[in-house]
């Protein structure tokens, strides 16, 4: 891939890449851009800076890449203070430097991945349609435009793609229901309310390769006969909102969105809507209520959103990752995708490695890689250098696992068998300073703050759970029986996953880390 850029760049100017991804900006990418421009001017170097997405090696951000004849050479983490020495060492010719890592694509963290959904993220200029098309963009859509809706749905079904938002429901089945439900108006809704702590894959994709999501949504629309799409994006992602909004305008101007998608005669239009800081909106029916302009109160199912969704119309509602994977599947075929993975988890999972970790970032791998491999081989252990103690997988409703469960492969069923869940693929690592009794309390506190309030087990249960955990932490360990009872009730009787899964972190903490719930531990800790 880099050769393509390399060929183009045999004459000056020198091309470098500095991400416009929010994570890179959060550690100073913009300041590095400015320092690079100033220094290049001073030295008379003709420098072209392309603002790409992140390669996902977040500990190296801001990562500066230089296009050379051999490929893109990486330097990072670069601060504005390093810019002078980078120029001194002629980094723009790929010169050696203390921050140098050689070819980006040879860095083991990056090299040992199977990047399908993220194939272009960090590689291309996110807002260049030419770049997108030169790297395989719209191949899937063009194929889809020549197929019947039923054939597109069959391809998605055959790929084995399951909802990447957390529930893991087969995407093709959802699509089929919408295809077979007749109505004048249908909708495609993209759930970009990526609220789980430890997750950022949706954000990275929307900032680094927004046209892929647009393409995936158009394919969904073409497949089931929906002409309007909404992306429900959380307001905590202002940078993604900006970049994705620009991408929609570019796609509209170029005729990929609008009354006739690329001249096909099929209409599809797209709009972004901002959430307003409510975690519950990641739950699909609550998201639909929010899009309709109401309090985001969870709906009882049935009716399924596929039959009565947004404004009562048949609606495909999928996570960003699910929709953004569809173009690859259409371009390369269902079998090529299904060839990756294990058991009933087919394809790849964009894993997000986060928390107290030395090398955190985005790792797209075929299902089946073990937690240990991710945390140790990719992550290099804790950031603090202290011993590992626990990992929470799957966001705030996911289980806390101890070291003894690190051989669990990342696979929906393998995690379910250990009473955990993969969720959206977020992995949060903790060192030995974690107190699992406090984490259990936090699980209830979070649920109490974020519950929509519709069903009693969640609304009242979370508050009671928090209070009871306070008593346990204060030494009344006999109250643990009550906590367990409450967990059973919330699991059995909550309307949605918010109340229904809050017990998972609580029970896993109790089961795997009972020592943290003993009074002696509390006294020692305080």
């Amino acid at each position: 891939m880099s050769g393509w850029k390399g060929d183009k760049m045999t004459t000056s100017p020198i091309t470098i890449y500095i991400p416009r991804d929010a994570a890179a900006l959060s550690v100073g990418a913009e300041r590095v851009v400015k320092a690079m421009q100033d220094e290049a001017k001073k030295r008379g170097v003709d420098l072209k800076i392309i603002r790409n997405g992140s390669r996902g090696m977040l500990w190296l951000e801001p990562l500066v890449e230089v296009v050379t004849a051999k490929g893109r050479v990486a330097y990072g983490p670069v601060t504005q203070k390093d810019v002078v020495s980078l120029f001194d060492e002629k980094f723009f010719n790929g010169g050696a430097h203390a921050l140098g890592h050689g070819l980006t694509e040879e860095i083991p963290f990056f090299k040992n991945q199977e990047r399908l959904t993220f194939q272009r993220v960090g590689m291309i200029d996110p807002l260049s349609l030419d770049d997108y098309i030169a790297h395989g963009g719209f191949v899937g859509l063009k194929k889809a435009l020549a197929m019947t809706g039923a054939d597109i749905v069959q391809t998605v079904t055959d790929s084995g793609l399951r909802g990447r938002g957390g529930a893991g429901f087969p995407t093709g089945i959802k699509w089929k229901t919408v295809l077979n439900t007749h109505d004048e108006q249908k909708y495609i809704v993209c759930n970009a309310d990526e609220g789980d702590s430890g997750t950022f894959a949706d954000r990275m994709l929307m900032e680094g390769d927004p046209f892929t999501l647009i393409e995936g949504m158009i394919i969904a629309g073409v497949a089931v006969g929906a002409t309007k799409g909404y992306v429900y994006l959380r307001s905590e992602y202002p940078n993604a909102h900006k970049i994705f909004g620009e991408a929609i305008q570019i796609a509209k101007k170029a005729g990929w969105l609008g009354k006739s998608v690329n001249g096909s005669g099929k209409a599809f239009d797209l709009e972004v809507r901002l959430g307003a800081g409510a975690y519950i909106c990641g739950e699909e029916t609550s998201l639909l209520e929010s899009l309709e302009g109401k309090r985001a109160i969870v709906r009882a199912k049935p009716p399924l959103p596929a039959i009565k969704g947004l404004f009562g119309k048949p609606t495909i509602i999928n996570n960003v990752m699910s929709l953004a994977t569809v173009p690859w599947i259409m371009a390369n075929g269902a079998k090529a995708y299904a060839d990756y993975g294990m058991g009933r988890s087919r394809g790849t999972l964009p894993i997000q490695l986060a928390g107290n970790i030395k090398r955190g970032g985005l790792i797209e791998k075929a299902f089946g890689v073990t937690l240990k491999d991710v945390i140790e081989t990719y992550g290099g252990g804790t950031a603090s250098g202290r011993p590992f103690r626990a990992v929470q997988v799957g966001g705030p409703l996911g289980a806390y696992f101890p070291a003894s469960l690190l051989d669990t492969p990342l696979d929906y069923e393998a995690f379910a068998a250990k009473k955990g869940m993969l969720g959206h693929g977020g992995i949060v690592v903790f060192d030995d300073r974690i107190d699992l009794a406090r984490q259990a309390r936090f699980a209830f506190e979070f649920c109490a703050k974020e519950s929509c309030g519709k069903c009693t087990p969640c609304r009242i249960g979370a508050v009671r759970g928090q209070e009871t955990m306070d008593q346990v932490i204060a030494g009344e360990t006999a109250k643990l029986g009550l906590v367990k009872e409450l967990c059973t009730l919330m699991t059995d009787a909550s309307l949605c996953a918010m109340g229904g899964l809050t017990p998972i972190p609580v029970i896993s903490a109790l089961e795997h880390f009972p020592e943290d719930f003993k009074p002696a531990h509390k006294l020692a800790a305080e």
Partner: protein
Amino acid sequence: MASQIVNELKYLEGATLPILHALQENFGYVDRRAVPMIADALNMSKAEIYGAITFYHDFREAPAGKRVVKLCRAEACQSMGCEDLVHYLETKQGIKIDSTSPSGHLTVETVYCLGNCALGPAALIDGALVGRVDKELLDAVCAERPHERMEG
């Protein structure tokens, strides 16, 4: 001004949130006086509009401080010590989380996840995402001092 915003956006499908966001962006908060205006424009009840304002954490009913720090307190940032920062702000700077300082200079709010989970603790400072937030950075924000990590 407010009525202009409402009238421009009222034709959108599900216009409530876009209108509330636009009002807050323009005025810094959603004034109670806007409630009947929105209700009337969208043919919804005042209770429904007020209900929406109070349901979502983003919408304020009063102006915030001059500067707004949204500090992430979700698990990934907990693993990197965000609760120490909360404690530090309260004990050393006298700024209680989820409130505005008496001088009106600074509002510090809890958020759950900013999607910067590998570079925590994270915060949105006046809308700009900052990673690896530490006490020194918070000191600068509290003292209204410029800091190199908040420029650009």
